[in-house]
C-alpha cells in the first residue's frame, strides 16, 4: 500500500467495492466488506506486496471474509432454528436493483450464483489470470476452468432467454 498514489488507491477501492457489491448484492454489506478487507490487509501488512500482487491479494481477503460471513449467517440460522425461531430469511438481493440500471446484461448476471459472479468478475472484468483467480477463490485451477465454462453457458442462456426490455429505466 506504500507504493500507491491516491488515485491508484481509490481505483483499487472502487474495484473492491464492485466485487463486494456483486457478492453481497447489498450496498451496506458491500461497504462493510471493503472496510473489513482494508482492516485485515493493514493488520497483515507484514506480508509485503508489490503493486501487482496487491490487487489479487486484496480480492482474496475480501472473498474469504465474504465466505466467513456466509458461514456465520448459516450458523446463526441454525442457532435460530434450534431456538424455534424458524429459518432466517434468505437475502433477496432486491437492493442491488436500486443501484443497477435495469439492463438485460446485468440482470442476467445478477441471476448467476455468487460463485459464478465472483469468477466472471475476476476473469472477465478484472482481468485476473486463471492462477490468480484460483488463488483468490481458493479452488484448483481445473475447477476454475469448469466453473468458468458453466458460468459462461449460464450467462448465455439467461441473456438469450431475457430479451432486452422495451425501455431502460433506473430503479430507485
Amino acid at each position, binding site marked *: *500500500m*506504500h507504493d*500507491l*498514489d*491516491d488515485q491508484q*488507491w*481509490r481505483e483499487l*477501492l*472502487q*474495484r473492491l*467495492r*464492485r*466485487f*463486494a*457489491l456483486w457478492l453481497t448484492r447489498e450496498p451496506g454489506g*458491500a*461497504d462493510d466488506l*471493503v*472496510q473489513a478487507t*482494508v482492516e485485515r490487509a*493493514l*493488520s497483515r*501488512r507484514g506480508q509485503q506486496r508489490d503493486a501487482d500482487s496487491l490487487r489479487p491479494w486484496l480480492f482474496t481477503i475480501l472473498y474469504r471474509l465474504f465466505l466467513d460471513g456466509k458461514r456465520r449467517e448459516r450458523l446463526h440460522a441454525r*442457532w435460530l432454528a*434450534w*431456538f*424455534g*425461531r424458524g429459518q432466517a430469511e434468505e437475502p433477496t438481493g432486491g437492493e442491488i436493483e436500486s*443501484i443497477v*440500471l435495469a*439492463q438485460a*446484461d*446485468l440482470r442476467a*448476471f445478477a441471476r448467476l450464483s455468487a460463485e459464478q459472479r465472483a469468477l*466472471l*468478475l475476476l*476473469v*472477465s*472484468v478484472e482481468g485476473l*489470470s*486463471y492462477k490468480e483467480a484460483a488463488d483468490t477463490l481458493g479452488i484448483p485451477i481445473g475447477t476454475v*476452468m469448469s466453473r*468458468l*465454462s458453466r458460468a*459462461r453457458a449460464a*450467462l*448465455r442462456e439467461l*441473456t438469450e432467454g431475457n430479451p432486452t426490455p422495451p425501455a431502460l429505466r433506473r430503479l430507485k
Partner: protein
Amino acid sequence: MTRLIPTEHELHAYVDERLEPARRAEVEAWLAVNPEDAARIEAWRGDARRLRAALAGFGEQPSDPALDLAPLRRRLRQRRQWRLAQAAVLLLAVGLGGLGGWQAREATLFAGMLPMADAVEAHRLFADASTLDIQASDPARLQAWLGRHFNRVGQLPDLSGYGLQPVGARLLSNEAGPAALLVFQDRQGLRISLFLRSPGEHFERMPSGQRTDGQLQARYWSHGDYNFALVSAVDDARGEQVRRALGVSL
C-alpha cells in the same frame, strides 16, 4: 490444418487471451473453418465485453474519508505504536503480578469475545418466552430433566429462599454440544436464567467473573465439565447470592 481440436478449456483461454501465441494461431485457424464454434466464442466474448461496459464505473461512490490513503497510513503508524504500548502494559502487569496481572491477562484474552455471550443471547430469546421445552414448577422434575441431558451435573439448589421458583427449561445446542437454559421466576414475574454448556475452545479454562450486557448481568464460572452463567436483570440484588448458591451445589 490443425493437429488438435481445441478443448473447451482452450476455447475459454482463447476468449480470455491466455493462450500461447502459437496455440492461439492454431485455434484461430480452427475457428475459421468451424463457424458454429466461432459463433459460440463470439457470443462469450460479447457477453464479457457487455459485462465490462455495464460495470465500468459500477461501485463508484463518493470516497470514504476513512479509507483514504493518508489516514490509512496514519492508522498504520498508530497501530504499531499501540502494539508497542500494549506489549509494555502486559509486561508491566506481569511484572507486578497478582490481581493486576490477572486482569490484564483476562482483558487481553477476551477482548473481542465476550464470555458466555450465548448465555445472554439465550436468556433474551427465551427467558420470557412460553416456548420452553418443559414446563416444570416442580424442582425435582427439573433436576431429573437436567440429569438426563447433562449426566455429570450436580444438584440444583432450592432457590425458594430467594423467592424463585422453576418455570421450565429449554435444550439448546452450540458447536461444543448441548446447552441448556433453565428459567426461574419470582412472584413479581421477574426471571432469572441459568445457562450451562460444555466448554467451547475459547473458554476451556474460563475464569469466573461477571459482566453487564445492556440491561442484563451475566455471572459466569466453570465447574466440573461445564461452563455456567447466571443471567439476571442488572438491578436484581439477588444475583450474587443466587450465583453463590448455584456455585456451591452444581
